[in-house]
């Protein structure tokens, strides 16, 4: 990936991106709503028309994805989405290449500079948002190139096609490389509604394609933010006050400066953060230790994990926002002969991306360059503009490969921090957070408490359902205008309101409780991941209560949802749901519709002891609409499940005295290879529906499918995460 050009006005942006090229086509990239998935369509009029293709010169808005065809036939795709492992570069290239008529290997990728307003990569939205516009961009470019060639040959357009980067005149077999007519093509009008290929004729889409970033990653050549080397750079490492809102009380600066290689000790008083700069990281780290920092802990010194849980449980009573309602569920429940209530609890979670947080910045009087991995380049740019007072066209963000995003890099506070320190020094400053800093100053997936109550008919099926969510509204900080006027965060509707089930009567309530002393943020599916654990756990409880088979019970609830029913039936068949298990093993099931995709999953577990879970096998059947790159969908589900199992079994951020207690991989347990499922089978349903998201789908399923399998193994419910938490023992006693 080459370093992108600077952003600036539209004209210069075009000049830079198109520098030396003959044909530059821009496509508007629709902004995902939030950095996360919503199963609901955006409100009417909220976004410009999707898939509009424009000629740059006439653009009324800044486009942000480009196809560049140079006279030497080099084809470059300039993409706003960032590659953080989800394979988006590969599927983006596939979409364009399919319509344009080029081979995968002919395409180079560049990261687009910020400026289009849509450089958000998150929420499993990438394929969903680019499915149409990227094909249209490819088709428009193809149409213009064919027109140019046909004119040169004096033949009919209909007699021409494209193949491997050439225009082919079918009757005579003559060919012209794209580059030779690109300049001419660029003078033509861009077709606003180019004809797209008939999917039946696809040669790339729907067939497994190798990732285009594999070779550089297995050879160690991929440049992550951590790997950026700017001439003259110094390395800094930081410590922020371990208690949110606390202040710096003192330090031994002399001791730090005495460490060999230490260049400077920088202080940001506004944020109570200290940075030690040195020739290399180890000297900076030693310098930071030598500072022996002292802190005034401040108002949050009393915060403990229990403070947070108590506040969440307290929210189960008292006022709440009604987020969704159908019929009069509370009245039905009040008069029902049989009801069932359960309370679920989920912890704060860290991201712990393999690449610790880092950012490099060079702030000069005349400009600022930033090199980092970010899922939100626009905000990274804006923060630097704000801090430096430089005009926007003097701030450049160079997006690097991301060593794990999971929502962590939808935050940009580390960019702000780096620019603030880099302003104090004349050289480029690369700030590397230690793993300890990364874990203790993460922005955490919130903790939640949920309570569900169902009224049940004589067969044990739901006649009314109420659900109260207690927890933070992440969107209130992250994108305040998206908080509804009632104060609801619609992300919480994923896997709750947006579900494969329909209930005769329903009421969803939200009682907002923000956690003191910490910042909460996105994760690998906040709404979907938190919601599915609760809902699929509760449905499973109801099945057991009814004495019904968990698959059969769900089948009965899904009678009017053919896509959901199909994935469930296929999963049950593939996993051998109705076949006997070896002694000591048990199965659990979960069904979902989230991020625009359906999935049913079945886990087969064995628990030799109550705190030892062996995951023998997981079967997942996915209907994510039209599959662009089947093997990468499978890969995302495999990885998403393991990411989710890790959190579901082990992970909980705890606080004592306002301090996060987990500091490195010795206290923040990540699933290892010997603990990972022995076998994961992912089956894809053929579909011609528009593509759904996939990056968070597996993760959302992990906790519920595992909890339900463990419940079957142990004969008790698991309503608290992490599943191996001793609190699940207490939970057990409350159940009749």
């Amino acid at each position: 990936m080459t370093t992108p050009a600077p952003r600036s006005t539209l004209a210069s942006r075009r000049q830079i991106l198109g520098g030396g090229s003959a044909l530059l086509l821009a496509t508007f990239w629709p902004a995902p709503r939030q950095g996360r998935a919503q199963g609901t369509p955006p409100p009417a009029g909220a976004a410009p028309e999707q898939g509009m293709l424009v000629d740059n010169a006439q653009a009324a808005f800044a486009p942000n994805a480009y196809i560049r065809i140079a006279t030497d036939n080099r084809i470059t795709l300039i993409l706003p989405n960032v590659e953080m492992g989800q394979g988006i570069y590969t599927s983006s290239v596939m979409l364009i290449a399919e319509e344009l008529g080029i081979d995968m290997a002919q395409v180079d990728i560049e990261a687009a500079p910020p400026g289009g307003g849509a450089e958000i990569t998150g929420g499993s939205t990438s394929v969903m948002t680019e499915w149409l516009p990227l094909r249209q961009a490819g088709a428009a470019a193809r149409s213009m190139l064919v027109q140019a060639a046909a004119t040169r040959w004096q033949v009919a357009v209909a007699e021409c096609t494209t193949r491997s980067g050439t225009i082919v005149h079918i009757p005579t077999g003559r060919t012209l490389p794209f580059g030779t007519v690109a300049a001419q093509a660029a003078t033509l009008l861009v077709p606003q509604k180019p004809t797209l290929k008939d999917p039946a004729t696809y040669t790339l889409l729907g067939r497994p394609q190798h990732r285009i970033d594999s070779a550089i990653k297995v050879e160690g050549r991929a440049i992550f933010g951590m790997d950026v080397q700017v001439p003259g750079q110094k390395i800094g490492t930081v410590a922020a006050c371990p208690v949110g809102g606390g202040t710096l009380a003192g330090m031994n600066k002399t001791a730090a400066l005495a460490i060999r290689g230490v260049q400077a000790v920088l202080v940001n008083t506004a944020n109570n953060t200290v940075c030690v700069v040195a020739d290399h990281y180890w000297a900076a780290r030693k310098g930071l230790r030598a500072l022996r920092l002292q802190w005034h802990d401040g108002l949050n010194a009393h915060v403990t994990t229990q403070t947070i849980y108590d506040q969440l449980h307290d929210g189960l009573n008292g006022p709440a926002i009604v987020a969704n309602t159908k019929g009069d569920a509370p009245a039905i429940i009040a008069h029902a002969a049989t009801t069932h209530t359960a309370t679920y609890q989920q912890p704060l979670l860290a991201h712990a991306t393999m690449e610790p947080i880092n950012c490099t910045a060079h702030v000069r009087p005349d400009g600022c360059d930033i090199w980092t991995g970010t899922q939100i380049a626009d905000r990274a740019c804006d923060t630097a503009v704000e801090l430096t007072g430089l005009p926007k066209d003097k701030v450049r963000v160079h997006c690097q490969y991301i060593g794990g995003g999971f929502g962590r890099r939808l935050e940009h506070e580390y960019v702000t921090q780096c620019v603030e320190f880099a302003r104090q020094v004349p050289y480029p400053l690369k700030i590397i957070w230690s793993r300890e800093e990364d874990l203790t100053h993460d922005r955490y997936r919130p903790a939640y408490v949920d309570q569900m109550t169902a009224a049940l008919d004589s067969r044990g099926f739901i006649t009314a359902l109420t659900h109260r969510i207690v927890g933070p509204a992440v969107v209130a900080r992250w994108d305040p205008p998206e908080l509804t006027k009632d104060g609801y965060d619609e992300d919480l509707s994923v896997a709750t309101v947006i579900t494969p089930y329909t209930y005769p009567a329903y009421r969803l309530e939200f009682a907002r409780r923000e956690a003191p002393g910490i910042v909460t943020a996105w994760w690998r599916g906040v709404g979907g991941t938190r919601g599915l654990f609760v809902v699929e756990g509760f449905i499973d409880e109801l099945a057991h209560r009814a004495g019904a088979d968990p698959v059969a019970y769900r089948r009965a609830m899904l009678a009017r949802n053919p896509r959901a029913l199909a994935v469930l039936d296929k999963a049950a068949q593939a996993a051998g749901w109705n076949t006997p298990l070896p002694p000591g093993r048990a199965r659990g099931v979960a069904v979902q519709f989230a991020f625009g995709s359906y999935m049913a999953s079945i886990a087969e577990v064995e628990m030799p002891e109550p705190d030892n879970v062996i995951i023998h096998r997981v079967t997942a059947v996915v209907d994510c609409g039209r599959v662009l790159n089947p093997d990468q969908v499978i890969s995302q589900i495999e990885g998403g499940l393991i990411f989710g199992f890790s959190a579901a079994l082990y992970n909980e951020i705890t606080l004592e005295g306002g301090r996060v207690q987990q500091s490195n991989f010795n206290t923040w347990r990540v699933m290892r290879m010997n603990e990972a499922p022995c076998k994961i089978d992912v089956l894809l349903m053929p579909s011609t529906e528009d593509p759904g998201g996939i990056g968070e789908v597996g993760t959302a399923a992990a906790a519920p499918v595992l909890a339900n399998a463990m419940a079957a193994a142990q004969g008790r419910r698991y309503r608290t995460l992490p599943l191996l938490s001793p609190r699940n023992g207490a939970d057990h006693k409350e159940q009749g």
Partner: protein
Amino acid sequence: MLSLNINGQSHQVDVDPDTPLLWVLRDVLGMNATKFGCGIAQCGACTVHMDGRAVRACNLPVGLIGERRISTLEGLNPADPVTKAVQDAWVALDVVQCGYCQPGQIMAAIALLRAVPHPTDEQIDSAMSANLCRCGTYVRIRAAIHHAAGALA
């Protein structure tokens, strides 16, 4: 001045002997294939070879290395049969996602296959469980090691 034998070349480095090899590689010598993940030998992102064995560079003080031969991912001979088999298998099975841990995974896998040409699942798990992957590529890493072993047969 310390002398280190890295990828067959002698390097003179002027650092304190307690400096971990990882930071000499990355910040002093500019060799970035070896990654920083934890700093306490818990994640394996910094796995390199010392005399052919997989070790964690993040807590290996350069002062203790002496004459021993260090190899890093960028220094491997791509034509070496084991290196080639492992890298080819990783590409063929599309193992990588974010890719940040993969240099360490590949170094661990190469060391394993040099010691145990045809490892069982249990031997793979045992050799590879010191290497974390947050993207969760373990199932494919296991398969790729078998694939590479098959290619070397």
